[in-house]
């Protein structure tokens, strides 16, 4: 699709027009960090953000959401809760676009997860390229997620005084023509500039795995009984932070809550995490992944192997959020590399 | 009543445990006591060896109702010991949350705990049926006060973010504006409560005593000031031990106090009203007028009425504080302090009266010595002296009536017994 150019000075106007018709979710500052939030004013947006605490996943799959509402009686009345908000996720980095793509698969394959898909289908994504690593923890290039081949409606690249805008979908095209009136088609010179910027971008990303993501599954297959898991488990606090910040973690728990009148209530789901001990506990008391090491291993297997086997894409996008959140710095790069070298040994 | 005993074991509708003992023989008052058997909690000892930074969170746990006051008083004392004066923003927010606590606590007392006495009910529960509108107004104000404290302090009981030399989080300007709107609406509710109190007949009993309260040149003092007395004169807070003299009686686990001049004195809403009437907000003065209430008033039963007036004041004054905050804009500030050895006293007007915290810190900032003087403790002797004066005046009445009157008297002081027993326990011998 053709490239467009949007002057940086016009971004706020573009946003303001979008905000009239959509809820626009974009990166904003919170203390010394950044989070995705519903924009109140266009100028709050911080397109220079390195990375957000949580990925924009929370707007497709909220930390807590009501699935059903019910009123008890004979028979009880139950209704599903639907969302019809039209939203734009604005300024989403490649890692999070890739993570969203994985969530889309997970929530649609075999059975449609209706609450997720309802939101997803009303959500447009305006991506934003990363020209340098967000910090020393990220390893997105190595996981193949610095690159996006789709999964966005529009995609912005910082060209200094303007953004290069690639159109990813027909909807994106309409968005551009209806709301970004100041955008103009790119000239040959613009295209050359884009290519130059992209050319400079890739070498800046140096942190990497010593193994191709597609081979990770095989490495893991061979290292199920590695002593590394035990070793890590001694450090691991079991706090679950890694699960809770990962853009591709989507496990959840479901609970009912009744009002005090004990007549009306709702059923809600909440983010859960496989590092938490009760994740596999059944009513008779068994915990199927009893030692912490087994739970830790399961997380890395899910990222490196299980999701890859199910969806053809590794479950880790290399955003580095988990290790940033981890107080004992359990780092996927170090772990995958250590496992890989133990395989070669 | 000619002969008999009045025993109120575990006085209800007060915070904490207190007993009343009265013995009457041959139509004469033989003995009387106001006992506090509440478990002692040793806070002065518990903070020893703890860091200056933890003192406020620890002493907050002295009392669930005035935890904000304890927190602020501890912070003030620690800051004085460290030689720190917090920023204007910090102080404005502290005053704002303190007003929130005042409203919360006064409404709890005047509305939930004392009003049933005037309406002839054993508790607020039956009032839900008989006086639903009044109860709902009380609840609305109480909710406002709590949500206000939740907003500023993170939690209405045991605030989270108030720390030495600042706050760990700030409300947003939008949140403050929204609070302002709600407080304006709250003022209307407060006036409805004033109207209700106009209808109550307050027992007529007077006894001359000394009233102590903080006084500040610029405002009706809550957060800081010098110690003022209705007997005249002021004492700087750092010299509080010259004015407030603590002592112990064997039948009570709470420490008591007398002043440098009198064997007992009173603190609390009435004491503040009597000392600082002129500085009440305009609407609060109107409310006092509507209630026919003027300083110096020596009827202890009027303490509850003074609380109602202070509710109006706290609401109206908060509008001023919020306007000041909004005009300045809220910003994150540096909170770092230089730790050093030192000694500091803090004094804050909490709902039940003036509260003192005093700490000595070592060079690592650990507490070496602490002394806490709690309002209810300061009132205990005054309560007993009131009883001594009141009983002979009503001794002809039936026992039940005397009992109720004595209960109402104690309750009028809104005694916070868990606070005042932070110190010790005495066995009967």
């Amino acid at each position, binding site marked *: 699709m053709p490239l467009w150019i949007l002057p940086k000075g016009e971004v706020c106007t573009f946003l303001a027009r979008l905000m009239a018709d959509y809820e626009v979710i974009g990166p904003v500052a919170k203390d010394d960090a950044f989070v995705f939030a519903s924009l109140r004013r266009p100028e709050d947006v911080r397109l220079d953000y390195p990375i957000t605490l949580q990925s924009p996943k929370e707007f497709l799959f909220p930390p807590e959401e009501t699935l059903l509402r019910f009123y008890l009686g004979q028979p009880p009345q139950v209704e599903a809760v639907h969302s019809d908000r039209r939203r734009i996720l604005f300024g989403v980095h490649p890692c999070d676009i890739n993570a969203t793509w994985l969530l889309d698969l997970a929530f649609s394959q075999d059975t449609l997860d209706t609450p997720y898909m309802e939101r997803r289908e009303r959500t447009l994504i305006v991506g934003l390229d990363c020209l340098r690593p967000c910090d020393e923890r990220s390893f997105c290039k190595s996981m193949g997620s610095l690159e996006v081949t789709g999964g966005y409606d529009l995609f912005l690249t910082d060209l200094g005084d303007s953004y290069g805008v690639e159109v990813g979908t027909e909807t994106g095209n309409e968005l551009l023509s209806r709301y970004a009136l100041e955008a103009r088609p790119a000239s040959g010179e613009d295209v050359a500039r884009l290519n130059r910027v992209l050319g400079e971008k890739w070498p800046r990303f140096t942190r990497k795995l010593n193994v191709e993501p597609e081979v990770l599954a095989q490495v893991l297959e061979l290292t199920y009984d590695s002593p590394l898991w035990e070793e890590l488990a001694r450090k691991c606090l079991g706090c679950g*932070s890694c699960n809770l910040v990962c853009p591709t973690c989507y496990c959840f728990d479901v609970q009912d809550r009744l009002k005090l009148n004990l007549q009306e209530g709702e059923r809600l789901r909440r983010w859960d995490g496989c590092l938490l001990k009760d994740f596999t506990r059944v009513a008779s008391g068994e915990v199927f992944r009893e030692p912490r090491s087994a739970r830790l291993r399961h997380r890395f297997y899910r990222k490196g192997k299980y999701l890859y086997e199910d969806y053809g894409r590794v479950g880790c996008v290399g955003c580095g959020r988990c290790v940033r959140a981890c107080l004992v710095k359990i780092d996927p790069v170090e772990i995958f590399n250590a496992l890989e070298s133990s395989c070669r040994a | 009543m000619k002969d008999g005993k009045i025993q109120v074991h575990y006085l209800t509708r007060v915070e904490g445990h207190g007993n009343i003992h009265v013995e009457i023989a041959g139509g004469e008052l033989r003995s009387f006591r106001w006992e506090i058997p509440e478990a002692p909690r040793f806070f002065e000892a518990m903070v020893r060896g703890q860091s200056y930074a933890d003192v406020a969170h*620890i002493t907050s746990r002295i009392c669930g109702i005035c935890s904000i006051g304890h927190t602020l008083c501890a912070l003030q004392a620690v800051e004085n010991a460290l030689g720190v004066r917090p920023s204007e923003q910090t102080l404005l927010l502290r005053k704002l949350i303190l007003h929130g606590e005042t409203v919360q606590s006064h409404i709890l007392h005047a509305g939930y705990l004392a009003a049933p006495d005037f309406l002839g009910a054993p508790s607020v529960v039956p009032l839900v049926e008989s006086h639903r509108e009044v109860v709902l107004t009380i609840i609305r104000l109480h909710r406002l006060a709590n949500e206000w404290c939740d907003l500023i302090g993170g939690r209405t009981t045991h605030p989270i973010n108030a720390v030495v030399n600042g706050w760990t*989080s700030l409300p947003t300007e939008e949140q403050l504006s929204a609070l302002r709107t709600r407080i304006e609406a709250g003022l209307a509710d407060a006036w409805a409560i004033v109207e209700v109190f106009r209808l109550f007949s307050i027992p007529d009993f007077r006894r001359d005593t000394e009233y102590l309260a903080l006084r500040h040149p610029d405002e009706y003092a809550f957060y800081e000031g010098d110690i003022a007395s209705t007997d005249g004169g002021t004492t700087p807070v750092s010299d509080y031990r010259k004015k407030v003299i603590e002592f112990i009686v064997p039948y009570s686990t709470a420490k008591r106090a007398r002043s440098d001049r009198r064997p007992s004195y009173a603190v609390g809403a009435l004491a503040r009203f009597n000392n600082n009437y002129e500085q009440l907000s305009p609407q609060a003065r109107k409310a006092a007028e509507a209630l026919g209430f003027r300083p110096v008033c020596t009827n202890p039963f009027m303490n509850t009425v003074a609380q109602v007036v202070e509710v109006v004041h706290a609401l109206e004054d908060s509008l001023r504080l919020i306007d000041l905050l909004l005009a300045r804009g809220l910003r994150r500030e540096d909170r770092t302090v230089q730790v050093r050895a030192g000694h500091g006293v803090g004094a804050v007007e909490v709902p039940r009266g003036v509260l003192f915290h005093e700490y000595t810190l070592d060079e690592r900032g650990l507490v070496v010595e602490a002394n806490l003087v709690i309002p209810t403790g300061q009132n205990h002797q005054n309560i007993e002296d009131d009883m001594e004066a009141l009983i002979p005046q009503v001794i002809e009445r039936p026992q039940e009536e005397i009992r109720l009157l004595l209960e109402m008297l104690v309750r009028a002081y809104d005694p916070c017994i868990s606070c005042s027993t932070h110190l010790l326990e005495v066995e009967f011998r």
Partner: protein
Amino acid sequence: MKPRVAIFDFGCCEGCQLQIVNLEEEILDLLGPVEMVTWREAMSEHSDDFDIALVEGSITREEEVSRLQWIREQAKTLVALGACAHIGGINCLKNRFDLEEVRRAVYGEYAEWFDTAPTRPLEAVVRVDAVVPGCPVNRQELLEIIKALLLGKKPALPTYSVCVECKRKNNVCVFDKGLVCLGPIVRAGCGAVCPSFGNRCEGCRGLVPEPNLNSHRGVLAQYGLNLEEILHFVNLYGGCQAELASLQGREGGLR
């Protein structure tokens, strides 16, 4: 018949009872499914016939033991309300001292008058059927526990850490703000309220069932706390936990 509820308190600040008042209008809803029969702080009415006892505070005097035992005998369900009742809470700070010495040092000539015993959480004295942790209790959680009892559900608490709730709320971790936090080893349920307001979790809800204390001690040391400071921090509210755990034959708490 509606369950009859009674509220009792031992050594504490009574802030947890206050949270019941702070339910505001919801109290009226609560009075639908239950009947309040004893609540000294708010009512003059009183009855010894109750089903559910909400008990606040910790045991700090010998004479309180029998009163607690009496409550246990009367109640079908005994609920420990708040940190003091649950894990001893702030009152445990007292146990750091030799009580004899404290009495003498602080009260000199009056020392003889004072009776005090080491602080104990309720569970160290009687069986406890349900717990509402926290200092003070979280009002919504209190309601959830009461509802669970009314519905015949297990009055279950989260078994995961405060960090989980902190992440659900998208907070900036206070470790990144130059503070230290107990969140990773403390039981969730408060909505990570302290980190949400920029302050550290001080562990008022007690430890998670299997805390990795060793590892977290290492973290705190790495962030600059010495051993004494670590002990003070972990034991700010939880000073009785180590003893309680050993009483129940499990691991937990730092001494």
